[in-house]
């Protein structure tokens, strides 16, 4: 689509403001770690397993270190120290730490010795991530991906085997991307469940084994289809960094990952989230995974017309944080949504303005366009039609990733046939309007252009405020999503630790080394 005549100076100002907001958080981030970051470090060294009641060994290790007051030095230190003291392998060291004598006496071992003992293991750790990335990229290069907008669908049966069947069916019906929604409130538990699961509410548990089951199904299916199929899960909630790691080694392609979502929509502590998002994104960057941010959610708790600008401001902030974690633009799937109340006159024009504005401000980013959800009703026919106009805006504005709307959005998680109808419907719209974006021009004095300019200006104003007061206070007073979250409130604050002067984390060092 011909670019909307917006003032690029405002765009530059927004970027600068957001960058400053992120910059001022970085000091805090660098000085702190979290239980989930440390567990991730252990996983990176290959530590795997759980006890009979599914309690992961990495959690046990971190708990013991915490009891011993050693966590501030980093789980890697303990691992290195135990290896130095003679453990055969990181796994053996971790088992001793978890179920054996624990960290007794480790403090006496020097940081230098501990680091030395980790060197080769650190190399192996990164090789695992890089290996998985290489495998993904070669398969992707060999098969190629579908035309954009990529058709992204959700499966959420709670049973990973049903999920896999439905993922195949979806791919056969034209899906490019399959996301397995997580079980309700997994984001609130502070460990990653173990093994394949068949029971969940409103979704399926995110576990390493479940990732494998779906990836295997898609690997097979993509050969049949001759089209590379992308897998998505959630690096979000209290285990954000761990899931990022598991996704990296299981070759997932995308992860829902947002600098603020957990704070706003799961009431997770702001400090915890900031530290976790940074580390998780370092892993994600190394793995070459595309993040999907969650600005769409803002428009479910706040009004999509009045608060459209909060989406843009938040995207700039997500972009700034992602940059600092080493993510290139090409891996930033910034989210936005078709959420305006359908009874409002000219809602379609406002959606067009917003979609094009986002596309234009973030030209190299794989933008993720999300459907109407809040204003959907039980009238599936009406709802399916709403999704038709949504698809049209998606293709008209060249969105990269499009999460398909479901006619049963207000009723249940998608049935197999709901997903099929959505895929078939999107195929029709995308084909019928294939080159619409080359054709469209907007009346320069019209409503669409005016709307885009207004939203951008409001986004800039909000960013100025946030920059002035700082991120924590902005979130505390409800600047985003109309939700207020105090800096020290919410879940998981107790999982944040100030790093000691001799904090050890060779994995992070390596991840940061690249950029």
């Amino acid at each position, binding site marked *: 689509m011909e670019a909307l005549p917006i003032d690029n100076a405002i765009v530059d100002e927004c970027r600068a403001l957001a960058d400053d907001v992120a910059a001022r958080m970085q000091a805090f981030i660098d000085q702190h770690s979290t239980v989930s970051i440390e567990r991730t470090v252990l996983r990176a060294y290959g530590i795997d397993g759980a006890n009979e009641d599914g309690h992961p060994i990495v959690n046990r290790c971190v708990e013991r270190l915490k009891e011993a007051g050693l966590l501030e030095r980093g789980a890697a230190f303990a691992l290195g120290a135990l290896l130095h003291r003679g453990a055969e392998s990181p796994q053996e060291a971790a088992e001793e730490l978890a179920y054996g004598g624990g960290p007794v006496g480790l403090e006496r071992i020097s940081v230098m010795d501990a680091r030395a003992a980790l060197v080769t293991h650190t190399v192996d750790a990164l090789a695992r991530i890089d290996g998985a990335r290489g495998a993904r990229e070669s398969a992707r290069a060999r098969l190629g991906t579908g035309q954009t907008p990529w058709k992204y669908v959700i499966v959420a*049966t*709670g*049973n990973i085997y*049903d999920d896999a*069947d439905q993922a195949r069916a979806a791919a056969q019906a034209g899906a490019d991307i399959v996301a397995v929604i997580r079980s309700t409130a997994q984001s609130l538990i502070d460990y990653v469940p173990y093994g394949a699961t068949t029971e969940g509410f409103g979704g399926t548990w995110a576990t390493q084994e479940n990732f494998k089951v779906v990836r295997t199904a898609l690997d097979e299916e993509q050969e049949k289809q001759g089209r590379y199929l992308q897998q998505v899960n959630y690096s979000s909630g209290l285990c954000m960094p761990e899931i990022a790691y598991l996704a990296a080694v299981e070759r997932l392609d995308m992860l829902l990952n947002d600098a603020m979502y957990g704070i706003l929509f799961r009431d997770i502590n702001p400090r915890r989230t900031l530290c976790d998002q940074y580390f998780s994104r370092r892993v994600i960057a190394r793995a070459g995974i595309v993040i999907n941010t969650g600005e769409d959610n803002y428009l479910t708790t706040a009004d999509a017309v009045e608060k459209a600008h909060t989406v843009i401001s938040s995207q700039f902030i997500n972009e700034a944080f992602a940059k600092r974690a080493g993510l290139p633009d090409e891996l930033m799937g910034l989210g936005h949504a078709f959420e305006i109340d359908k009874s409002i006159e000219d809602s379609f024009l406002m959606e067009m303005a917003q979609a094009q504005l986002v596309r234009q401000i973030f030209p190299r980013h794989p933008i993720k366009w999300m459907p109407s959800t809040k204003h959907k*009703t*039980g*009238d*599936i*026919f009406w709802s399916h039609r709403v999704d038709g106009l949504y698809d049209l805006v998606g293709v008209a504005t060249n969105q990269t990733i499009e999460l398909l709307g479901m006619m*049963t959005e*207000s*009723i*249940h*998680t*998608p*049935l*197999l*046939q709901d997903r099929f109808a959505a895929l078939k419907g999107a195929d029709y719209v995308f084909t019928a309007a294939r080159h619409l974006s080359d054709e469209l021009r907007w009346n320069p004095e019209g409503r669409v252009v005016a709307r885009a300019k207004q939203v951008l200006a409001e986004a800039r104003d909000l960013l100025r405020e946030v920059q002035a007061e700082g991120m924590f206070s902005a979130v505390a007073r409800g600047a985003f999503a109309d939700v207020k979250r105090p800096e020290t409130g919410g879940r998981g604050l107790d999982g944040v630790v100030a790093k000691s002067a001799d904090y050890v984390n060779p994995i992070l060092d390596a991840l940061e080394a690249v950029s």
Partner: protein
Amino acid sequence: MKEPIRAYGDRKDDGRIQLSFTLPVPAGGRAKEAAKLFAEAMGLKNVMVATVEPAGESFSMFVVYANAEVTLDWAEIIVPEVTTPTWSWKELNHLIEEEIGRRVVVVGACTGSDAHTVGIDAILNMKGYAGDKGLEAYPWIDAYNMGAQVDNAALLTRAREVSADAILVSQIMTQRDLHIENSTQLIELARKQGMRDTLFLLGGPRIDHKLARELGFDAGFGPGTKPSQVASFVVEAMLARRKT
């Protein structure tokens, strides 16, 4: 060996299905309850009335999701399907020339008060359908297209005049089973007139092979049929008969 199948909604065998229907009552809580009872009266379980829409002051339209306790045995479901290999235009002309040695004659029409010619034209006219040439375009087929609103007697007479090998009947109008009546009547007439060895083909958007067979036709063709499929069926049937 049994192969039980159930409806697949959210999960294997959950039996979840969707319904929509209208009741002549004003929208509201009472209408919603009526919709629930309506679905339960059909033996559905776990009924969820997703919406009650006021489709006018005294009508409500409902969208309902519910579980059907129906289990079928897939192994027991056997239906006749047209099994002809679909030969190409070239192969067909060649086959006729070699094996039959004379041009195949077909007469087609959309019968009764039915004025829909597009379907039969798609099969017969030069132009054909979806890039597949129509029967008129086959040098080894003589195709007569009588068009629409043709009555059964006239069709049979014409068929005898040109000594047709196959009669192609199109039925698009299906309201109140117009098509059933009409086609049954044609077959009876043909029997009376002793047209044993002519092939009868029925086609239309609501026709399938099974239905056509039940109505006494040799084959039935539904939506998306291509002329070459039809020609293939006719030729194969003629060859088969010659063999016996």
